[in-house]
């Protein structure tokens, strides 16, 4: 039964069937022998497959966003039911925002959905975020990583500024820096001294997962 329900939940999410996914989530919560944590694991497994399909080109933005949205809804239901131990076992905190001068929100939102579903506590600073705000958030939340999104070449300078600020405050050992968005490249990451560049939300989540130590 347990195995069955886990598979069914996974399949429902991979079929992008919102209603069925939430239905199985409720069944998890109702069943005595099941825990919310098992459902969360199941969703994480499904999202890994979603990510692989996206990276291999079989799936595109539509499927990626939709799977992320369903997963988020499921997580909203499951989170209150997690035991204190399970909840505390989150992988770490990630601070995310779109740099000042840029309003692009879509890629960041997809990333946030994936990172949250992968067990990260994500703090979203929003769009058009000044470098100083990133620094304040890094000071306040002491995150594992800070992620910056930038799709406009002229705004890219701000991303470098955040790297400078965090480096100046000697916070690099504690907090890694990851960048993404159409105006970002690996070469740019190297140039400004960011820890990583992610070409998409799925890769970004993978990279941060690799930093959990």
């Amino acid at each position, binding site marked *: 039964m347990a195995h069955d329900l886990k598979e069914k939940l996974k399949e429902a999410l991979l079929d992008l069937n919102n209603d069925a996914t939430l239905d199985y989530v409720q069944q998890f919560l109702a069943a005595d022998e099941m825990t919310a944590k098992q459902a969360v694991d199941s969703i994480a497994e499904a999202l890994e497959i979603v990510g692989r399909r996206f990276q291999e*080109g*079989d*799936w*595109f*933005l*539509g*499927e990626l*966003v939709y799977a992320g949205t369903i997963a988020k809804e499921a997580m909203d239901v499951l989170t209150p039911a997690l035991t204190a131990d399970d909840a505390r076992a989150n992988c770490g905190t990630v601070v995310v925002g779109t740099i*000042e*001068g*840029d*309003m*692009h*929100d*879509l890629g960041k*939102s997809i990333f946030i959905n994936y990172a949250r579903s992968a067990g990260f506590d994500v703090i979203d600073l929003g769009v*058009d975020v000044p470098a100083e705000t990133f620094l304040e958030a890094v000071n306040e939340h002491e995150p594992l990583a800070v992620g910056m999104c930038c799709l*406009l*070449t*002229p*705004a890219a300078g701000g991303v470098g500024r955040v790297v400078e600020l965090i480096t100046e405050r000697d916070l690099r050992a504690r907090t890694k820096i990851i960048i993404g968005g159409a105006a970002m490249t690996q070469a740019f990451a190297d140039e400004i001294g960011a820890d990583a560049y992610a070409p998409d939300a799925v890769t970004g989540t993978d990279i941060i997962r690799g930093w959990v130590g």
Partner: protein
Amino acid sequence: MSLRIGIEPQSRWLTLAAGESLRDALFRAGIEFPCGGKSLCGGCQVQLLAGEIEPDTAEKEYFSAEDIASGWRLACRLKPQNGMRLRIEQWQHRAAAPILSDTQSIEPGCEETYRIAIDLGTTTVVAQLLNMATGEVLSVVSRLNPQAAYGADLMSRIDYARNDEGFAQLVNTVRDCAGAMISELIHSSGIDSALVDRAILVGNTAMHHLFSGIDVAPLASVPFSTIHGGLRRLESAELGWKGVDELAVWVLPCLGGFVGGDVLAGLLATQLHRERETSLLVDLGTNGEIVLGNRQQLICASTAAGPAFEGGGILMGMQAAAGAIDAVELKDGELCCHVIGQQSARGICGSGLVDAVACGLELGWIDPSGRITREDKRIPLTSDVYLSQQDIRQLQLAKAAIAAGIELLCAQMAVSKEAVINVFLAGAFGNYVDVSSAMRIGLLEFTQHQIKPVGNTALQGARLALGLASDVYDEQLREEAADDTDKVQLPELTAITEKVVHFSLGESQAFQSLFIEKTKFPESSATPEYQPEV
């Protein structure tokens, strides 16, 4: 000793300064190196007509043995040789692109004057000399926008202009280019330059600002709006133009955001703003511009489609030049490709890409999500050219940006797509793309009878504005407005610019979800067959 190189189809000699590279000399002559001369894109193809040069590895990789044998090389790789002759591929195509510079006359006026209309495009600049008494176009010249040396797309040029030196370079480059083109027009037609009293220049917001010498920094970041997008009037003297005295140069005002005077000109050309019924004007390019409206109401937006429509970011993508597949159709279930020029296919341009994907959908090789269903994960077009999964994805992003923009403007105005009388397609790509393929991939969600390719409406509108500008401007107004030329107005244009509302798609949450939705392809093109109930 300096070298001399012959260039075709212009049939002229280009003299290289001592030590000057071929690339620099060709660039000076107006040849584009889209990837910056890194041998990545093949955009700078030339055919060696005289002279012998061994191909290097990059060229052997890019061209077929057949092409190499017939002299095809990449200009960015070539070492100059005295007396060599090159046929410039880019110009072959441009010469065959009448769409950019159609020469329809305007209403004859009574004044014995000559005026000049200039379409200042990001890529191409076209200028025409008109006899205002007869309304005839006497002469046309076109050049590549020399600012391309500082960045192929608008955003990289705006970025380049962030420091004073870069800004001055961009301003001077574009002014010098326009000035040289005007001189060329006047001299080639043999008229007295004193009889030329006015030029009207149209371009997008960045071109408007750079030509007028206005800071483009506000266009570099959110909210991408400028308060200096008004009608400008400059004197040839202050532009540093020689040989053209007392020429007043008008730069048409912008409509908002990135939507510039070229789109305003498009309105003049299509008369969208005068009709009772609602029509749509769409300029399909890297930056797609959309205006929806009628004589009561006008709403505009720009949407970032990316370079896919121009063959950019596509594995085997190229400009619409010789060797490019520019059209694909299905004949008895088989793909038939049309290739520009008398040669084998080397790549695919934007119009070919849209066709190929439309055919792939019909064959079931691509499903509505955009996934290639074939085992080999490719859409084979010819023995050498195919589309990859990633290419389909690039087109999905480009078409979604346009389709979502159109849908959102329709929603804003509460107009159904069925109620739109005309869908005017402006610009080069809009005129080369096959309308039924554009419909099949969901780029244009309209019916065939609504869609009307209308050519280079920016230039058409600039010509019409030549007539408008007369008599309205007076010196007193100019003096009053000395500090702020935004106050200078042309009533006919002001009536439009005051009515147009610019809608910022980037700030709209609805746009994001629509954009995702529109990345999908329509299920089927076929209208449901009529099946009588039994």
